[in-house]
């Protein structure tokens, strides 16, 4: 397939007789030998699977070559070896879902209604094999051909009861070798259960069988609580031993032991195996060839202080290969790897760039619209359904249309060149293209306009393929009528379009990082090493933040040694200016052009900068329960770290140590998991056991959340004899100070009876609480969530930046996180900031933004209050002081202010009110 010629029309796939399993749909259905990986693929290009293509395997068929209107089929293509010279390599090979076929107790291969979570994910999807409809026998085709399958499919029903089994292929060294926790399965099982209920209706009974519910991500705990309390999803703490199938109905019978030790039998219509994440054999081999070290579980070995750097210089890693992780952490990893790879190459930046030739723009302001309309056939994609010649003829009859033409492929180079010629020859000053979607093709046509000397906003595109010929292929007459309507609407809008200007954004390439903790220092170091002047603001008298209080990381690295080294590097870096004892007093300006007043002791000074990184961190809660503060033997996790750091010999002499988890976390007034405390306590318990193996060490917990390879610490702690006793939120342990003893009473979950423990040391694993700095949030107009953590731009895809342009976030101010994740996010914030800094002389606003008609503005302030990007504000000087004005740099062109302006004073260029009305009116015209 020649990808330069393929237009993604799909005519080939409609006729292709070769079939193979559709991997995108978890092999639940088949796809043709010529295929597109998935419908959302960008670019939308087809490929041939040489193993099943009849032409390539048996030299028969050849249909696609005959059909392809773009002549893109090339059977002679061979595998090519390409050699690239690269300065850095980012290795992101991903994972493979665990294959449960080898577990005979769950009978995944034999039972029709046992599916994996990946399969269920596709079953829930609107683009999946059942279009989102949850049905039993999902592994059989919708209309099977085999006789025995046909009989089974007759029994197909909408399930009434579905069970999820957690930790399939994770936290298991009995049936497989994956000792680690896959980190994502608890959350995706909750999500799948919620969506299944949404699709199937409220009476669907969903049960999740789990060992520990692990929802330590941002906003995850609330989601879990919501699933339990509001949506009635059942959470059953039990590992199901085996599954049997009813021979007649194919329902699934299970037997399990409940928390009280009772044996329960139950029947489900479907069972979903929540399979874990694994590193494939191929990836391990490739890692071997690259010469990078792996952990025993097969993940890349990285240190907590260089969390995306492999053991080999110049090779950086991201994603699940680095450790099992969810989407936001993968995105952070990717950003961080980009920053690490870029740090090494900063000297080479812009050495391979070329300047684009500028074509002078023709002034069309005030000219009568002369519209050129181009109707695309898209081979037979549009023309096969819509009478394109008829539509073209019709377009010629519309007001202001000077010229209309039909093109076989409007996007082909040939057609583009012709378009430039027509624009010049006929003096066209507005262009309408009726073809596919502007989301992929608008920039291409706009470039053509630019090449012809027209402002690129004198363009309108209407979608007669995706929204018309592809979806109404059995109604050609109606589709043709619809195409005419769409063209008429587009022409009406285009007639009102005006040339728009993209303003140059001046970027001051100095950066201010607020907060001198691990995350902030990491961001500053990365930006400085890429050559940008960075000011690091710290309110305390020294750098390092909360990390000063930590003993070691989950991987056993000494925190203080690394921290001291990082501080030294920061202090000696000539691009970094450290301002300790300094607070932020005022912020003015916007992306690229901030101005702040800062105060060091009693001296105020001003700072101009273009980018801000907020790394203000979080702190440990001071507990108000469990008799804290009344006895020196009752301490917090950080107090215990302090004793370890000071090599307190007394620790080895203790007879009994107790840890209480979730002190202040996961409760109604603080409904989030603090993420780090389980690992911290488990690690400290191991340290105590190391100092005195005879010591009785207890961890009182609700769920142990040692996600990823931290699970190995949990395993090690159990092997060393640390005793784990579970409690629930309603029955917290009770701490008493009696006769000089610290006594802890709670109900033992295994024995199901009350126990009392005497502790020589009671460590409270306290919540991490945000600083809730509303003043800072207001300065930069960035939001805080209910708990007081910063709200990032996008929970999944924008985890290190704010919706406000030019302002970035990292560290525990975003959400509690361990050392390695804080450093990753610090690098990620730097990486995102670089995307603006690197474009310093080449950054422009969009043309489609809002503007104020000052004569109409009544100064009500609705726009100022409503804009999520803080673009409108009251002008402070000049003739129109007091009126609203829009900052072109901050405006994202959403039009919220336009719709809410009560005076009709705001216009949205490119989508102005008269343009949208013109489309509505054009629809109303009787043809």
């Amino acid at each position, binding site marked *: 397939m020649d990808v330069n010629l393929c237009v993604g029309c*799909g005519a080939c796939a409609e006729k292709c007789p070769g079939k193979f399993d559709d991997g995108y749909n978890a092999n639940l259905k088949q796809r043709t030998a010529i295929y597109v990986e998935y*419908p*959302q693929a960008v670019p*939308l290009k087809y490929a041939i699977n040489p193993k099943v293509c009849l032409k390539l395997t048996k030299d028969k068929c050849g249909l696609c070559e005959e059909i392809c209107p773009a002549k893109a089929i090339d059977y002679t293509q061979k595998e090519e070896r390409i050699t690239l010279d690269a300065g850095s390599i980012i290795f992101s090979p991903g994972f493979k879902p665990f294959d449960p076929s080898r577990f005979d107790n769950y009978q995944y291969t034999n039972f029709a209604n046992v599916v994996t979570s990946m399969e269920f994910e596709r079953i829930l999807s609107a*683009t999946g094999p059942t279009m989102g409809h949850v049905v039993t026998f999902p592994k059989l085709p919708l209309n099977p051909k085999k006789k025995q399958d046909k009989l089974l499919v007759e029994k197909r029903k909408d399930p009434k009861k579905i069970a999820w089994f957690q930790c399939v292929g994770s936290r298991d060294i009995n049936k497989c070798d994956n000792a680690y926790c896959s980190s994502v399965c608890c959350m995706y099982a909750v999500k799948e259960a919620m969506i299944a209920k949404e699709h199937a209706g409220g009476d669907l009974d969903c049960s999740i069988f789990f060992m520990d519910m692990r929802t330590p991500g941002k906003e995850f705990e609330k989601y879990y609580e919501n699933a339990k309390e509001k949506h009635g999803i059942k959470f059953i703490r039990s590992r199901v031993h085996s599954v049997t199938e009813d021979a007649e109905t194919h329902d699934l019978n299970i037997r399990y032991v409940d928390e009280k030790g009772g044996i329960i039998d139950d029947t489900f219509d479907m069972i979903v195996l929540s399979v874990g994440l694994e590193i494939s054999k191929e990836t391990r081999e490739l890692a071997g060839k690259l010469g990078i070290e792996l952990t025993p579980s097969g993940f890349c070995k990285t240190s907590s202080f260089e969390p995306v750097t492999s053991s080999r210089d110049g090779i950086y890693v991201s994603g699940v290969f680095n450790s099992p992780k969810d989407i936001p952490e993968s995105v952070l990893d990717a950003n961080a790897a980009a920053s690490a790879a870029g740090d090494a190459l900063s000297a080479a930046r812009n050495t391979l760039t070329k300047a684009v030739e500028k074509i002078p723009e023709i002034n069309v302001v005030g000219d009568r619209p002369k519209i050129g309309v181009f109707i695309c056939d898209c081979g037979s994609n549009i023309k096969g359904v819509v009478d394109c010649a008829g539509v073209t003829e019709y377009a010629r009859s519309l007001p202001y249309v000077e010229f209309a033409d039909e093109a076989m492929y409007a996007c082909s180079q040939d057609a583009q060149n012709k378009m430039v010629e027509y624009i010049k020859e006929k003096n066209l000053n507005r262009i309408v293209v009726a073809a596919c*979607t*502007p*989301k992929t093709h608008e920039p291409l046509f706009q470039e053509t306009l630019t090449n012809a000397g027209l402002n690129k906003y004198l363009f309108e595109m209407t*979608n007669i*393929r*995706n*929204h*018309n010929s*592809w*979806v*109404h*292929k*059995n*109604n050609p007459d*109606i*589709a043709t*009528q*619809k195409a005419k*309507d*769409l063209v008429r*609407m587009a022409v009406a809008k285009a007639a009102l379009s005006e040339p728009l200007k993209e303003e140059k954004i001046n970027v001051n390439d100095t950066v201010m990082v607020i907060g001198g903790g691990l995350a902030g220092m990491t961001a500053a170091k990365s930006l400085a090493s890429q050559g940008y002047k960075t000011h690091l603001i710290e309110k305390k008298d020294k750098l390092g933040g909360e990390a000063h209080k930590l003993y070691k990381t989950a991987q056993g690295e000494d925190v203080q040694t690394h921290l001291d080294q990082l501080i030294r590097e920061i202090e000696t870096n000539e691009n970094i200016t450290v301002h300790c004892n300094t607070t932020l007093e005022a912020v003015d300006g916007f992306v690229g052009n901030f101005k702040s007043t800062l105060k060091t002791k009693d001296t105020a000074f001003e700072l101009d900068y273009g980018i801000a990184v907020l790394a203000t961190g979080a702190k440990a809660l001071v507990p108000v329960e469990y008799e804290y503060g009344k006895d020196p033997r009752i301490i917090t996790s950080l107090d215990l770290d302090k004793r370890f750091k000071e090599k307190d010999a007394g620790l080895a002499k203790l007879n009994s140590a107790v840890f209480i988890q979730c002190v202040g976390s996961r409760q109604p007034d603080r409904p989030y998991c603090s993420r780090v405390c389980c690992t911290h306590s488990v690690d400290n318990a191991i340290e105590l056991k190391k100092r005195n193996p005879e010591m009785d060490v207890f961890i009182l917990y609700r769920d142990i959340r040692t996600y990823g390879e931290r699970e190995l610490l949990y395993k090690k702690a159990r092997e060393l004899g640390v005793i784990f006793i579970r409690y629930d939120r309603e029955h917290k342990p009770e701490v008493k100070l009696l006769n000089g003893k610290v006594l802890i009473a709670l109900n033992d979950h295994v024995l199901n009876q009350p126990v009392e423990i005497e502790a020589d040391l009671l460590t409270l694993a306290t919540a991490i609480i945000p600083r809730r700095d509303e003043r800072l949030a207001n300065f930069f107009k960035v939001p805080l969530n209910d708990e007081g953590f910063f709200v990032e731009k996008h929970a999944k895809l924008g985890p290190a930046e704010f919706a406000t342009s030019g302002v970035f976030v990292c560290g525990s101010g975003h959400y509690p996180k361990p050392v390695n994740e804080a450093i990753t996010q610090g690098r990620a914030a730097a990486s995102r900031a670089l995307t603006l800094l690197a474009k310093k002389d080449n950054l422009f606003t969009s043309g*489609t933004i809002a503007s104020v008609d000052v004569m109409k503005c009544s100064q009500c302030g609705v726009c100022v209050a409503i804009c999520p990007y803080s673009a409108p504000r009251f002008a402070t000087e000049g003739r129109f002081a007091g009126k609203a004005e829009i900052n072109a740099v901050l405006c994202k*062109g*959403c*039009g*919220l202010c*336009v*719709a809410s302006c009560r005076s009709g004073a705001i216009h*949205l260029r*490119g*989508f102005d*009110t008269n343009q*949208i*009305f013109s*489309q*509505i*009116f054009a*629809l*109303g*015209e*009787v*043809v």
Partner: protein
Amino acid sequence: MNDNTIKIVSFLCNWCSYGAADLAGVSRMEYPADIRVIRIPCSGRMSPKFILSAFREGADAVWVSG
């Protein structure tokens, strides 16, 4: 407005629903040809006047999606 064809005026947000309509096309899903899409930059752009105006022009229904 011609009674036989146009019934539903659809205001689709460029970032979500418009893309979803594209995807429906790529997936070759079929649906009645009664909708006419007007692409808007965000559902926040919607003004009640657009809806009233569409009805005045004879629309049977107005669909705002974002």
